[in-house]
């Protein structure tokens, strides 16, 4: 079992005055994509996390494009690394957490 720590963007415009990054720990017996890692946080650690789960899962549609360790990347084709920071692209209106306005 491998342990991943991920820092995920949290922001609820109804209750929060400013966004924050929260750290989560998940386990996996092999490599995960960032998208799979985010889903695992939602499934096993914190179900209040808002996410989009309607992307193509194979690098085609671009729905899961976000900032991963400061670079704009597709969460479905990017391999998750321990300690990664994941959030919305800059200057994007955030609806909640990892759900933000699209291009």
């Amino acid at each position: 079992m491998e342990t991943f720590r991920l820092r995920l963007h949290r922001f609820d415009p109804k209750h929060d005055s400013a966004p924050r990054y929260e750290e989560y720990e998940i386990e996996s017996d092999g490599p995960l994509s960032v998208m799979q890692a985010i889903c695992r946080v939602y499934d096993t650690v914190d179900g209040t996390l808002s996410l989009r789960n309607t992307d193509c899962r194979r690098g085609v549609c671009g729905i899961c494009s976000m900032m991963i360790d400061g670079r704009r990347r597709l969460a479905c084709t990017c391999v998750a690394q321990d300690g990664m920071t994941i959030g919305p692209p800059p200057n994007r209106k955030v609806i909640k957490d990892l759900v933000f306005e699209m291009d």
Partner: protein
Amino acid sequence: MIDATIDADVLVVGGGGGGLRAAIEAHAAGARVLVLSKGIVGKSGLTQTAVTGFQVAFGCADPRDNPSVHYADTMRGSYGLANPELVDIFTREGAATVEDIESFGARFDRDDDGNFIQRRLDSSQTYPRSIKKGDSLGTPIMQALRRQMNKCDIPRRHEILVTKLLKDGNRISGAVALDFQTGELLEIRARSVIMATGGGGELFPVNSNTPDSTGDGCALALGAGADLVDMEFILMLGHAVMFPETVRGVLFTFQYLLDKGARALFNAEGEPFLSRYDPEGSDNPPRHIYARAIHGEVRAGRGSPHGGVFFDPGSVPLETVVDALPSQTQFLQSFGVDMRQPIEVGVAAHYFCGGIRIGPDSLSTVPGLYGVGECSGGPHGAARVGGNSLTEVLVFGKRAGRHAAETAATANAPTNDPDEVETECRRLLGFLEGSRNGPRPSEIKKRIKQTMNDHVGVVRDAAGLKEALDAFEEIAMRNLPAMALASPERIANYDWIQAIEATSMTRVGEAVARAALMRTESRGAHYREDHPDQIDDEWLQNIVVRQRGKELSVSSVPVNSATYGEETG
């Protein structure tokens, strides 16, 4: 309780290939169109993931090919259960649909003389017939459809989940929907509704679909009184990657490498096995045989560590692999798959052959309600032939769009039943109430998937199917009413979406299991271990599933015997 009401002539539910094609045509025919998708319109759905199959009988690779041969191949491949009228339509109109897509800005691969490059997918095609664009057809097709949709400025809204279809008497009148981003409840008044919501691959733990493929369209159509047909036939493919987890379920179309000298699939003992399972004795049999053969090897203890068998891309030069399958190879390599070593490949749920029972204009048995693409049933019968899905979704998308627009032009302004709207709003808001203490929606989904995998998958029998029906009844009676969401918030609450999806999945799973239990034979994608033979005397029949009140009923009917869009009482 409704936060906003929207009017449209034609409501299109689904933002993939079928939905966009229908919307473009309905718009061209003068209708006020609204496209809703639970994902992002034009970027969600499975069309964009299509890789290598698009059958149109241009006869470029072999001049003997024509729509009649394509028709015969498709009818044979459907094991006699496809609706002949529908097959005739999509095999003949395929060429025009390619022309349409190219007029929207795509261009498929041609040789130096300007003829389409056409390839053979498997032995079900008499002649090489599949046109191509590199090794990913879906991307250029969706780009072209998006471009045309934008050019026509067709109204659309993203991340709207339709949760109920509404009727005015016998006729469809609109829908209730949930806006994921705002949590608002919407009422739509529409003269025609086109369902293009895709299939239900997500009912299975390993599938080649996307997580939002939850069979919503079939569940909604059942609720509106429409017939579903051929629900027992779910195509399970044997060329999904099984390991690593990151790419589990991703398709690797190694069949293209077999022509180029690659070694056939082999089991843990290093033996080839496919010919043992194929009545024709081929090492590259039709695709549903792959699934049964792999399932058989795994069950006999000759499988790979992660429940599959082996394909060795190292048996041909790397350039051959990259040349035949460039984007698939790149995708797998990005997750560390070594293309010089044997890869574990296995079974994944791929395609619901059945769905909303449609006629030539894509009309269901309910006036004003249409089905397009994977959520529809009739064009494929007992097994969809490889490469027919794009042809069918684009041909019937166009037909549905045109017919829906024409019908809408003459239909009276619809009136939704306010009681029905209110009941649906109460149901949706009920999910957010804090008094529930049962499992989360994702746990219920897990139970549904396990049930489908164990009892309604590649190999079925009466005892297992009855067990599945018991499980679905318990889920419906006990689990769903107690389902507890992680958050009661309305804004961007993914648990809320999943709660609604889990409800649909339970209904669809039950529909599949009921049809599979009724069909006491084996045919196409449906295999009954307790009834292993195909019995043409008895079973050249379609099975229809209907909902009356809360109950589902199944009946068998002669092929192509329905009346579409008429009063059915």
